[in-house]
């Protein structure tokens, strides 16, 4: 271990590291947004949809959840170009992470919706709300509040999964650190550093989540 050398290298390369962090954030934010949007809709279908649709998405969710993220990423990377979809490596990676995220969010949403007492739907019916409005004004607000901690957990899983994009050559944080290691041979120091950075990112996400939870919890 050579702390002085390490700090020298760190000072010299912090710009690169920052770029890597930015890329990781960019990847994660996009995957989380797309995945959550899709996941919410799928979750609603899983709980309230017509049986054929329900079975279809049930199969989708169960299938995706049985496949390791790395396999999804590799599959997206190799398959997309072959079937003619022009997506950059980065795009393929974000697509795979979004699909992964959507399957988790769908399951969480379904669980949260299922936990809402049936009386809420009956009360909404008795004041003549259409089902669409019932979902928007009565069910989702309650489900989202209930889902929040678990969803934050899913968000941190996506951030961690973004490291797998280094395997298909995306220059996110881990790849950047690996490049630095191959140049400086200070593997232990840099791996600990990157572990610590990811820990900080996820810890921050959890803190923000707890903050939001405090704000939206009802009295």
């Amino acid at each position: 271990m050579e702390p002085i050398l390490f700090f020298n290298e760190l000072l010299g390369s912090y710009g690169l590291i920052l770029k890597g962090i930015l890329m990781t954030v960019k990847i994660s934010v996009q995957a989380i947004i797309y995945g959550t949007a899709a996941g919410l809709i799928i979750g609603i279908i899983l709980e309230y949809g017509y049986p054929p649709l329900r079975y279809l998405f049930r199969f989708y969710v169960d299938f995706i959840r049985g496949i390791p993220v790395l396999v999804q990423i590799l599959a997206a990377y190799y398959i997309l170009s072959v079937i003619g979809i022009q997506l950059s490596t980065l795009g393929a990676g974000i697509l795979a992470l979004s699909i992964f995220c959507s399957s988790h969010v769908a399951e969480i949403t379904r669980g949260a919706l299922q936990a809402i007492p049936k009386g809420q739907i009956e009360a909404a019916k008795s004041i003549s709300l259409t089902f669409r409005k019932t979902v928007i004004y009565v069910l989702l607000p309650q489900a989202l509040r209930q889902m929040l901690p678990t969803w934050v957990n899913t968000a941190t899983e996506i951030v961690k999964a973004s490291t797998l994009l280094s395997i298909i050559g995306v220059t996110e944080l881990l790849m950047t650190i690996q490049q630095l290691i191959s140049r400086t041979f200070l593997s232990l120091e840099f791996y600990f550093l990157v572990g610590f950075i990811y820990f900080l990112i996820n810890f921050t996400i959890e803190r923000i989540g707890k903050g939001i939870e405090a704000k939206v919890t009802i009295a």
Partner: protein
Amino acid sequence: MSTDPLLKIESLHKSFGTVEVLKGVDFSMNQGEVISIIGSSGSGKTTILRCINLLEEYQQGSVTLDGVVMGYKTDNNRRVRLPESVLVKHRSMTGMAFQQFNLFPHMTALRNVTLGLIKALNMDKDEAIATAERWLERVGMLARKEHYPSQLSGGQQQRVAIARAIAMNPRLMLFDEVTSALDPELVNEVLSVIKSLATDGMTMLLVTHEMAFAADVSNRIVFMNEGVVEEIGPPEQIFKAPKSERLASFLKGTTI
């Protein structure tokens, strides 16, 4: 027109799976009448209410409210349940207060009442708030309009729930055992609200275990037993001079 009954229930049959809960219910109600349904658990009392406002499906019979046949139509001799959009319109003719209140926990008392006015009746926001506040005041909850359900006692929640239902201006109000889940000391505040609504001429159908209250507020009492209307009549008859044996023995098991 005004002598036609507001509510007509004919030959209502309902089963849950293989268990038949309603075995042919018939009765009718006039506008402005208050009717209480009494009977032992499992006799089908709550089920009748839930069939009227189409929360439950039923296999046979019809419910007609203000001339409208609710929920079903006959198509080439086949009985067909109407689509949800039509059911929503039919349901808007009734209002229901539930045993478990079912207030929306993430909304203030005021918002609970204005939600239906704004989103279902498409009322203008200011008009909705004015209407809601009027009804909240009627039930004595105006001072607490910005409170959330978790901050209200059971009796207070139930009164807000009643305001929420009535603000929608239904032709018929349904009360499903609205005091059964309340602590004893909170029951009276709800009962007095119901009584004052009755005095104002609201048409109401109540399912209740509160016999003294039923006797006090109702024009007629319906006694349900094993899925049929066993006896129906004014309170003096039902409670003082019951015609059916089963009613007599049911009353023995309760205190008036």
